[in-house]
């Protein structure tokens, strides 16, 4: 089902949790709300679920205005951060809850059939008689998911659902949840502060900062064309450096980095340099190679020390410079934001010959 959020605002006392947020989620789409804590992503999710009111703006599900519709009538499934399972009920009863509280309660045999079907779907059919305290974190999450799916939700909301899992399990579960989404085709919104999780799972990522969605696009576009310095710094790895633009060229002095050609007005600016933008080359220079992080066939991720500032860069792995040996640092490009928010891609003045 399609979800349309328009100009939603919400204040708590004197602090604005959301300011004019608009977002559209297409039928069957998987969208992630990504932002640091306090950016308003959980508030937005709670508004969608009907657990929190809005001060202004509208939320429409399939064209139907949700203002004033209580949570219990929205048919929006939620997987809560700590799962919020009912501890006094078995796994079976947890999943059956949404069916049992229906106005027209299905017959017992039908409930049992539906619950078993859902437990099979989330691959824990053997746990139906256990209590939440008797199963592992990953299993609890599957119970929470099955419980949310039992009401045949029009929209599925996942609130930091992987936070309580250990790193090893998390990767598997992410892929599994995304696969489940593709099979069921339920529109899904994931709230997370983990950029890797957001980019890996979602079709589109809405980056939130201080109560606003600053950019919403595919992971590829967010990385290539970040709309604001915040997005550039929050997504992907980047070294942030101050620079000065003079006559269409960004200078990094006093750092011994080559300047970049940018179409920006003169003045102070900020450059975001991805590891791919920073080429570490063998030869005499002012950089010192401090660490080699990750070596693939043709290139190595390295950390280079440039007059006390550590930069994440790449080096050709075949002819990689030695550790703690001086090396040359060149730039292949970068994204530069002028102080007025204007943005431009930086281009090297001279082509880099090697690397």
């Amino acid at each position, binding site marked *: 089902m399609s979800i349309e959020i328009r100009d939603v605002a919400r204040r708590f006392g004197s602090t604005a949790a959301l300011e004019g947020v608009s977002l559209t989620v297409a039928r069957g789409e998987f969208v992630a709300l990504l932002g640091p804590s306090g950016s308003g992503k959980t508030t937005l999710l709670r508004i969608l*679920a009907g*657990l929190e009111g809005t001060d202004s703006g509208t939320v429409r599900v399939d064209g139907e205005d949700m203002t004033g519709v209580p949570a*219990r009538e929205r048919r929006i499934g*939620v997987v809560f951060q700590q799962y*919020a399972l*009912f501890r006094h009920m078995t796994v079976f009863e947890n999943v059956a*809850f949404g069916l049992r509280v229906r106005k027209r309660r299905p017959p017992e045999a039908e409930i049992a059939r539906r619950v078993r079907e859902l437990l099979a779907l989330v691959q824990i059919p053997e746990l139906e008689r256990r*209590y939440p305290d008797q199963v592992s974190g990953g299993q609890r999450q599957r119970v929470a998911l099955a419980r949310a799916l039992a009401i045949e939700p029009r929209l599925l909301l996942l609130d930091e659902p992987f936070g309580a899992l250990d790193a090893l399990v998390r990767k598997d579960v992410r892929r599994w949840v995304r696969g489940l989404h593709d099979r069921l085709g339920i529109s899904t919104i994931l709230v997370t502060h983990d950029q890797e999780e957001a980019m890996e799972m979602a079709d589109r990522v809405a980056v939130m900062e201080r109560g606003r969605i600053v950019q919403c696009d595919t992971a590829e576009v967010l990385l290539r064309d970040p709309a604001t310095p915040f997005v550039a710094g929050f997504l992907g790895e980047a070294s942030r450096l101050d620079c000065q633009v003079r006559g269409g060229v960004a200078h990094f002095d006093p750092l011994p980095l080559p300047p970049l050609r940018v179409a920006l007005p003169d003045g102070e600016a900020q450059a975001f340099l991805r590891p791919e933008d920073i080429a570490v080359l063998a030869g005499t220079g002012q950089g010192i190679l401090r660490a080699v992080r990750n070596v693939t066939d043709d290139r190595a991720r390295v950390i280079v020390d440039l007059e006390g500032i550590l930069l994440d860069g790449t080096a050709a792995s075949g002819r990689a410079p030695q550790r703690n040996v001086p090396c040359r640092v060149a730039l292949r490009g970068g994204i530069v934001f002028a102080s007025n928010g204007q943005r431009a891609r930086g281009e090297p003045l001279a082509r880099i010959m090697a690397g």
Partner: protein
Amino acid sequence: MACGRPSRVAPVPGLGLTLGLTLAWVGLVVVIPLAALAIKPWELGVAGVAQSLAEPRVLSALAVSFGAALAASIINLPLGLLLAWALVRLDFPGRRVLDSVIDLPFALPTAVAGIALTALFAPNGWLGVPLMAAFGWQIAYTRAGIAVALMFVGLPFIVRTVEPVLRDMGKDAEEAAATLGAIRPQTLGRVVLPTLAPALLTGFGLACARAVGEYGSVIFIAGNLPMATEIAPLLIVIRLEQFDYAGAAAVGLAMLCLSFTILLGLNLLQRLVRRGRR
């Protein structure tokens, strides 16, 4: 120190000492007095104990004590839950004051409470007059008066046991129930109350146990009419005053057995409702 005989070093040091102290203390303070109470009545012989307990006045006193204690605790249960709910969930002016007032029955000398309640509910008291006029109820010097006094002393037990569990529960489970389509009464009946059930039972048991043994606050408001409003602890005192120590101990032993049975039953019930929970 440990290097010589590592296998003899307990993970928690001082286990022997602390265990010894604990057992000695429990023995001195709890076990020996209770054992004395259990032994004393048999001076009368088995038949004597049976006869002493079969007296109508004794049976009536036991019934009054346990009946009033159960009634007071049952009334206190929803009341205590409501108070705990207000303290945890609502933010109203004077919440902190109410929070401390709840503990007052713990601190107040029970005789003071008894006299105050009697003055209030007496036929010419502030509450006694309107209650009599409006409903024709007389509270003081009746079994209802006993229950009122026991409600007063038992309430904080229920509030204080439910409160932390309620606070710990948070709103998550209730919100989850709402998103799953539950209306408020369903959420309360299927989620909130079952979650609180173990704590409610514990509070009920504590309030009940305290009420059964309550003496100070009851004797003023009860009227102490044999066969009607005489409580078992008072009967014990009366027998003691008549130097009938064994007879007093017999009533005491009967109370002990009844209380133990009730607490045991509550414990078993609690096991049932706690099933599967840590």
